[in-house]
């Protein structure tokens, strides 16, 4: 991502590794175990865990947990596949928990 300068970025709360851009937020209305979470169109410097089928509040999905690529902290999850039509827009996008990410100097 060559245009990091001048962008409002989020980083891992533990090690300050840059993980996402504020401009990539698709929705702010997600819920995780630790509280609120944002849905991003994509994230960087993250590692994906194995894919799993989970029954979430919104139905059956295939998700993979995502971790900070530097310190390994669980930051959220990525939607791989959605069963319901109304949920298909999430495919390929990443949920990051607010508790796990911090604003990087803004």
């Amino acid at each position, binding site marked *: 991502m060559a245009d990091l300068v001048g962008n409002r970025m989020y980083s891992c709360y533990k090690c300050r590794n840059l993980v996402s851009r504020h401009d990539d937020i698709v929705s702010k209305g997600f819920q995780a175990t630790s509280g609120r979470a944002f849905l991003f169109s994509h994230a960087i410097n993250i590692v994906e865990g194995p894919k*799993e*089928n989970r029954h979430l509040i919104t139905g*059956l999905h295939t998700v993979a947990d995502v971790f900070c690529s530097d310190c390994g902290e669980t930051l959220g999850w990525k939607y791989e596949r959605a*069963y319901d*039509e109304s949920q*298909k827009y999430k495919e390929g996008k990443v949920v990051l928990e607010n508790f796990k990410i911090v604003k990087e100097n803004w």
Partner: protein
Amino acid sequence: MDFVCINDMLRDDELRSILSRLDNDKDKERFGLVCKRWLYLQSTERKKLSIRAGPHMLRKIAARFSRLVELDLSQSVSRSFYPGVTDSDLAVIADGFKSLKVLNLQNCKGIADTGMVSIGCGLSSLQSLDVSYCRKLTDKGLSAVAEGCHDLRSLHLAGCRFVTDGLLQAISKNCCNLEELVLQGCTNISDVGITDLVNGCRNITFLDINKCSNIGDTGIFSVSKACSASLKTLKLLDCYKVGDESLFSLAEFCKNLETLVIGGCRDISDESLKSLAAACKSSLKKLRMDWCLNISDSSMSCILTQCRNLEALDIGCCEQVTDAAFEGLGEIELSLKFLMVNCPKVTVAGIGMLLDRCTSLEYLDVRSCPHVTKVGCEEAGLQFPQCCKVNFLGSLNEMDVF
């Protein structure tokens, strides 16, 4: 006495015959070092190249290897050099490699319609084109390819999300020899486009319309009827509008079907699956039907007992399937090599019954089965075949079977 130079006496075809008997690449290169004539013969003998080159180098390569048949310029998913293949590079290729039959441009994200127009105008012998994930391409450029390359047999357009029914119409009119078409992720295409496509292209053996969620029973009926003898592979992942009618039409018309992906086609029910099992019992080798929530033991049992050549089966999240589906297999030997049984009701007993019959099993995936654990299997004394990998935890690499 006059000396006769052997090089003058040997004709080109004799020298080519000598060249063909060299099996070592190094020797072939040395052949090319003898003189300009031998270099020309060696270079024009070369059929295939995988390269990464800018426009200047491409011109030189085109001049030297003028009879190239296959060219691979595919890039990795994370672009490894900037800017990658460009439209002007494609113009050089279209101009220089007139005998080209196979062109691989997968992940060449920089190319656009202009480049495709060059390809269409210049490479009339092209038979195979892979532009998967070249996301800028639209109907305009790709129609030019269809109109110019009449002998197209294989076209890969995965991830080209701007493709619409218009392109399918152009392909139908111009490329009647088409055998293999990949439209995975081309979400704008509909039943109308697919019906148009198979009107003109009746020899399709491989059709991948995974994730094309507008496709429904009408489209699949058209495909079944038009390509009945040729169709071997049909992929309909997450085409949730596809239902029983599609399976009934496949059972009626497509007796040579070998690979079927209907994962996520939630409306499919037992009756149509049973008719498909009966119709394709000797041909079916791979069946992916994960997330088909209406499927129960009765059709599952039919699939296992009738489809004797089945090698790969994925029934993940088929929530109604229980151990009963695996009873009554009698003494049949199943040819299954890859088995994904991530069903919440299946227990160690069910897995045991399957193992008794699957002596060739190479991979078993049970990572989402709440009742099937490594400890549980050991306690029950289950014997896994020698070379079989078992995935209990989801930590193994995903198998790319379907």
